[in-house]
């Protein structure tokens, strides 16, 4: 059945039955499959398949079904309106989900707490080159078109930046508002022009790599408790901890800290600790090792700091 035929039947359903039925559900699944492709940050590691899409449709329906139904029954007067309204609901649902991703949260942090809140950050007005981008007061406003490496290095070079300690079980850490404000100002200065919000998000995500990590769904809370209990039996190494050790620890989620002591163990141990299959255990280890690689200092203290982090995590 063509999309137009499906929409026509869906329109008939909502108008006569006052609810969604088979045609509406099929249309919903088809539109969900289309719209998920637009939201790259939600893409599962193995890509979208039918199960994943239908899972999203279920979640969508549980959260929004009643209001979507009311909306379609009230205003779904033509097949075109039904298709458009349904697509908008799905798109908004996916936008909400994307905002809950780490990159989405960084973007919201920048938009809601930084840009537009402080007078030194100015937006290029409509009609001008780079309209909608952000630049620093006193700096040129034309679009920055250079490499991001110097901007990221500038972000790292801002002194006195401290990572904020993990404040909840699922929220990634970033930094204080004052530090972030200083970083954004420094980055815009280095750019010498205007940046899109997405470009700023990229730079900030590189500066705080743990904040840009996806939610740690490999380890649930029960597993975390079990893993930390097992870890407490392991002997630790006593090392003096310094700023860099704290900086690494602060940026690890509780469940990531629980996994640290097992990173060099046999994969079967990791599978047992996490209570997951082999591929997910490998994935969790690979993921955490990559993160630590970016967080650990790149100097002669690297090994010492790593050992201290392992020791601390073993005692958590």
């Amino acid at each position, binding site marked *: 059945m063509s999309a137009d035929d499906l929409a026509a039947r869906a329109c008939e359903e909502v108008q006569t039955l006052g609810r969604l039925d088979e045609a509406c559900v099929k249309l919903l699944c088809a539109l969900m499959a289309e719209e998920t492709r637009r939201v790259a940050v939600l893409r599962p590691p193995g890509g979208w398949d039918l199960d994943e899409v239908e899972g999203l449709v279920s979640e969508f329906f549980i959260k*929004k*079904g009643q209001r979507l139904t009311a909306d379609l029954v009230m205003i779904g007067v033509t097949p075109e309106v039904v298709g458009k309204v349904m697509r908008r609901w799905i798109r908004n649902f996916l936008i909400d989900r994307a905002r809950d991703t780490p990159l989405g949260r960084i973007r919201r942090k920048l938009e809601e707490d930084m840009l537009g809140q402080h007078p030194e950050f100015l937006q290029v007005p409509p009609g001008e080159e780079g309209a909608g981008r952000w630049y620093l007061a006193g700096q040129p406003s034309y679009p920055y078109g250079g490499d991001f490496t110097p901007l990221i290095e500038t972000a790292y070079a801002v002194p006195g930046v401290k990572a904020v300690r993990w404040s909840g079980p699922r929220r990634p850490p970033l930094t204080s508002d004052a530090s972030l404000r200083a970083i954004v100002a420094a980055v815009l200065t280095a750019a010498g022009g205007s940046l899109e919000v997405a470009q700023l998000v990229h730079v900030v995500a590189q500066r705080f790599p743990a904040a840009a990590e996806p939610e740690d769904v490999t380890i649930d809370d029960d597993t975390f408790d079990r893993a930390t209990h097992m870890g407490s039996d392991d002997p630790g190494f006593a090392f003096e901890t310094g700023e860099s050790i704290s900086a690494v620890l602060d940026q690890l989620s509780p469940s990531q800290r629980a996994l640290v002591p097992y990173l060099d163990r046999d994969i079967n141990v990791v599978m047992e600790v996490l209570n997951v299959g082999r591929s997910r255990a490998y994935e969790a280890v690979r993921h955490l090792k990559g993160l630590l690689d970016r967080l650990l200092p790149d100097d002669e203290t690297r090994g010492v700091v790593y050992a201290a982090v392992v020791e601390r995590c073993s005692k958590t």
Partner: protein
Amino acid sequence: MTADDRLQELIGLAHTAAQPQLTELALRERFGRPDGWPLRAGAVWRARWDDIALLVLLVGNPTATTVAVTPVTFDDTGADADTLLVAFPSGRGATLAVWRTLRRDLPLALLDRPVDELPLAVIAWTAGGPVPDDARLAGPALPSVASRSPVRADLEDDLDALIAAVPALRPVSSRGAATGTRKRVLPTEEQFAALVARLGVSLPVVLDLVDGKREPSPEEAAALRDIVGITPEVTPPPAELVIEMYHPRWKATVLDLARRRDMKEAAARAVMASEAFALAARQTGDQSPDWRERLARWADAEGLGRS
């Protein structure tokens, strides 16, 4: 679980969210005939034109052709302190988001049918009043730059498109329209006969066309060009008639006409106005006709639906 099992599971979920009290039939029973419709502040209406439809809350009483509204939605994604969440009295468990910064003057011709009414305290909030007791703000106040609700953006687009879709009123009085001061076409008897034969219609219908009392169809325009040589300038229907047709009581009739003749709403309105005008001109020389009554008579003669 098979694919069909999963589909059935989703359909089961859909059934639990049914809103049968909101169907067209249920609304018709609830609000009755157009004379009793709440065309006043506090009423929630469906506004529509072609393939755009949305709900609006009337925040003022209507003028002859417009009414001040603010849109309402069931989706509140990204809404902030400029949006109020209120219970939707007829919706099972559904809340409505009232977007007060999107207030607009809508042409009455957009209003389709009433769907509910909200307390006047909500109207007061849209004008800067306090948050009503049984309502709440949709979110915190955000700097304007952060106000990125996709729902708000879609609403702005839809409102602009709706307002632009309604043809502008042409200010022609009944007297000016009826006196026929426009340039007329004067066919010969042979040309009249040829037109009647080619179009397969009666002489009065051809007279209306020749006198420019209604818009010719493409086929009629071609016949006029071929046989008479020109297409007569069409006399616009009087403003009073067009204004009467702005009233929501005629929306169902216009949409029925559009559906039957497979045309867009703007074209259906033009046809309805010109045909009702032509019929009225044939029936009486009254300079101030009761256009509501004339429209009803024409709609009944055409067998068109009424609200």
